[in-house]
C-alpha cells in the first residue's frame, strides 16, 4: 500500500516543480521594465480608493460553516456506505445513519429559516 502513496509523494514533488520551473522560465525569458503605472493595480481603470482589505460581511463565513458541518457528515457517511457490503448490515444500522443525517438536515433547515442561505 505504501508503494502507491510513494507514487503520490513523488508526483507531488513533481507537481510543485513543474509550475515553478515554468514561472521561473517565464521570468527569465520575459522582459522586465517595471514602472509605477504598469504595476498599479487594475480596478476597472479607476484609481484605487482606500484600503483593499475593507471588511466583508459574515455571509461567506456562514456558508463555510454549513459546509464544514456537511463535510463531517460525508466523512462518516462514506465508511458507512462501504459497510453495506457486510451481510449483517441491517435496518438498525440504517436507522442510526438516517437519524444522523436528519440531525444535520435540521441544522440546514434552521440556517435556511434564519436567512443564512440568502444572499443579500
Amino acid at each position, binding site marked *: 500500500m505504501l508503494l502507491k502513496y510513494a507514487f503520490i509523494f513523488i508526483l507531488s514533488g513533481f507537481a510543485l516543480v513543474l509550475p515553478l520551473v515554468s514561472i521561473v522560465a517565464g521570468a527569465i525569458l520575459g522582459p522586465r521594465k517595471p514602472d509605477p503605472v504598469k504595476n498599479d493595480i487594475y480596478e476597472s481603470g479607476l484609481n484605487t480608493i482606500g484600503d483593499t482589505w475593507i471588511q466583508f460581511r459574515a455571509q461567506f463565513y456562514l456558508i463555510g*460553516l454549513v459546509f464544514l*458541518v456537511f463535510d463531517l457528515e460525508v466523512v462518516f457517511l462514506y465508511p458507512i456506505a*462501504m459497510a453495506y457490503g457486510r451481510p449483517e448490515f441491517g435496518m438498525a444500522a440504517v436507522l442510526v445513519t438516517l437519524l444522523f443525517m436528519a440531525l444535520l438536515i435540521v441544522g440546514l433547515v434552521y440556517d435556511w429559516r*434564519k436567512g443564512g442561505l440568502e444572499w443579500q
Partner: protein
Amino acid sequence: MPELPVEIPIPTPHQAVFIMVAVATGVASLLVVTNRNLFYSALCLVGALFGVAGVYVLLEAEFLAITQVLVYVGAIATLITFAIMLTRGIMFGVTSPNNRYMFAVMSMALLVFLLVAGVVDRVPWAVAEDLTLSGDGKSMIVDLGWEFVTTYALPLELIGLLLLIALVGAVMLARDDE
C-alpha cells in the same frame, strides 16, 4: 580514510520519507506559532496539517489521512482564513503579537517537550512483534463504517447533535444583525 567513531545508519526509504515528512511538519508547526503575520501563520498551518496527513499515510491509516485533508485543509483552514480576513483592520506588518508571558511560556513549552521526549525514549512500549496489517485497506474502511453504526452508534449521534448545536450557535453568533 579513518573509521568514523559512530556508525551512521543508512535509512530505509520508509525511514527517509518519515524524516522528510516529520521535519517538514515540525518546521511548519513551529512557524505557525512564531510567525508575526497571521495570514502566514494560517498558510503554515495548512502545511503542518498536510504533513500530519502524510504521517497518517506512513502509519497506513489512509482513510484518516484523506479525512485530515478533507476536513482540516478543505474546511477548517478555509474558515480560519475567512475569520482572519473578517477581523482585521490593516493586514501588513505584525498582526499576531505575543503577550508579556512569552518567554516564560517558551521555556515552559521547551521543558514540556524535553520531558515528554525523554519519557517517550525510556518507556518500554509494548509494541507488537509482527507489524503487518491483516487484510487490505478496503476492509479497514468497511470495518470503520461498521464500527460507526454499531459500537459507536451513540457517539455518532452525539457528534451529529454537537454539530447541530455548533451550527445553530455559530449562525446566531455570526449573523449580521441589521
